[in-house]
């Protein structure tokens, strides 16, 4: 194959094998080269489109707000300042939100992952009576949903409004993740292994905790990461179920500062316009810094998570 993909080696021509190459190869090679150039160009443009906005936000977050305002910041920061970051780290709402998010993320991930792993294993066992009906019970919920209002009323009737549980429990078990975990168990845990273990007197519990779980590390990693990312980024359950702003997760705090403030400030031009404009620019600077700070933890973790997510997609694609 290297004969056709490496046009620069001239010695190929003298080799007898080259006579067996199909006649159209030469023409198609130019077609293929054009295709390669085109594909690479498209992908480079896509990379630029993804990266540039993020890069701009990073440089804008450390630039003089006036320079950003006047459109002088394009490739490098100008008039470097850390005021945006100082303001964020002085803001108690951010710290409080961050603390809450950490609690919700740890708790939510623990609840979700343990429920999903245990449940998915039970459903993966072909010898479990009633397995099909139980599975159907789960699948139905993927396609029909009681809706926002009734969910809210249930959470209220359970007395969970304004508690940690309202953020952790209502979205705990994603059926899609359950299906992925189930098919992972079906494909990686051989039935013979279980039979052998049972011969040796292992109960289902013992088999699950001592053999299945240690064999399922990639799945466990994937599930942990999916839920950490989801919980870290979620805001909607907190928005509808929490009134007490001391319980707000980081995302909700961010929403109130990043998005809500912008909407309300557009209408209120009055008083001292000069100082108002200056305050506005500082506020914008803080927003850039806030975007950086809030996305940084997951972005740093990304290279470590990448392997597992790609593997996860493979597991998912099997289904």
């Amino acid at each position: 194959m290297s004969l056709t993909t490496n046009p620069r080696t001239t010695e190929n021509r003298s080799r007898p094998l080259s006579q067996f190459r199909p006649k159209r190869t030469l023409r198609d090679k130019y077609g293929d080269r054009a295709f390669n150039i085109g594909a690479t160009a498209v992908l480079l443009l896509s990379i630029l489109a993804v990266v540039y906005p993020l890069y701009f936000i990073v440089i804008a977050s450390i630039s003089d707000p006036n320079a950003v305002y006047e459109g002088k910041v394009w490739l490098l920061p100008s008039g470097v300042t850390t005021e945006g970051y100082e303001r964020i780290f002085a803001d108690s709402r951010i710290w409080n939100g961050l603390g809450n998010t950490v609690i919700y993320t740890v708790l939510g991930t623990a609840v979700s992952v343990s429920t999903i792993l245990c449940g998915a294993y039970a459903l993966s066992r072909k010898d479990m009576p009633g397995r099909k009906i139980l599975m159907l019970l789960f699948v139905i919920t993927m396609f029909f949903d009681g809706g926002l209002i009734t969910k809210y009323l249930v959470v209220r009737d359970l007395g969970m409004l304004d508690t940690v549980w309202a953020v952790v429990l209502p979205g705990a078990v994603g059926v899609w993740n359950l299906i992925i975990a189930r098919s992972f168990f079906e494909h990686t845990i051989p039935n013979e292994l279980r039979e052998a273990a049972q011969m040796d007197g292992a109960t289902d519990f013992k088999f699950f905790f001592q053999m299945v779980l240690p064999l399922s590390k990639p799945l466990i990693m994937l599930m942990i990461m999916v839920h950490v990312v989801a919980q870290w980024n979620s805001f909607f359950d907190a928005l509808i179920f929490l009134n007490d702003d001391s319980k707000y997760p980081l995302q909700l705090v961010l929403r109130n500062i990043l998005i809500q403030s912008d909407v309300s400030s557009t209408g209120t031009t009055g008083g001292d316009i000069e100082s108002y404009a200056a305050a506005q620019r500082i506020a914008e600077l803080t927003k850039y810094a806030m975007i950086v700070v809030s996305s940084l933890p997951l972005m740093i973790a990304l290279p470590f998570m990448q392997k597992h997510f790609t593997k996860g997609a493979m597991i998912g694609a099997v289904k």
Partner: protein
Amino acid sequence: MKRISRAWQLYVLLAPAIVYILVFKYWPMYGVQIAFKNYNPVDGFTDSPWVGLTHFIRFVNSYQFGQVVGNTLWIAVLGLLVAFPIPIILALLVNQLQSERFKKFTQTVLYSPAFISTVVVVGIMFVVLSPRSGLVNNAIQLGGGEPIFFMGSAEWFRPIYVISDVWQNAGFSMIVYLAALAAIDPALHDAAKVDGASKLQRIRHIDLPGIMPVVTILFILAIGNLLNVGFEKALLMQTPLNISTSEIIQTYVYHAGLQQAQFSYSAAIGLFNSLLNLALLLVFNTIARRANQATLW
């Protein structure tokens, strides 16, 4: 009975998940009856008086009905037409790259926005598209144009919504297709190469048919969620100025239901949304089955 008692440990393992869906999925489904009742907190789900289809009729006759349903369908269809094919195209292109390192790099970069929260993505849109100091408007002014107040204009809501969706999710959706492409037997490609097939021909005749089952399943799932996806983002992107195009069924349910406490009325609208979704799913699954493609069941 004996089989069941022998498997009791499996039931114990499954119990938390079952309790979860009974409480948080089936109890709300049972509660959907309030869409046909005048719900009041004292009587609860069961004892509130029946009113039949009153709430549905009120919704259909309300002046927002056409607008809200129209906006929902617009966003859903636009999203599907634009956002669904792009990850497939990206995956086909990435799959053809020869350098493993560039391949990996492209993948990582393209899917990294998926880890940024919706709140922050919308926050990014607000600062980057800001009429006073935003990057995009600075560029427009540099080119001699007039600044545009993107987030506060009804016409711009749909394009911004769809573009940001592609920006955030296309790379992540691409991974599933790449996994499917990796599963295609390389012998097919080798055989085609020997026969003199060009890259484009191989994409058309080997790669595309090879990932078609995955494409179909994801398409059906996308249809099934057509009216649900992106509700959080629409809510975040809403400003009083773009409400005429940004109010979709789900945000309307949120406003009418939770902010104005019209529980029964908005539950009826929510149910309308769910049923519409279910109908779409069934229709498309049937079509896929007729066309002999992979189906969900």
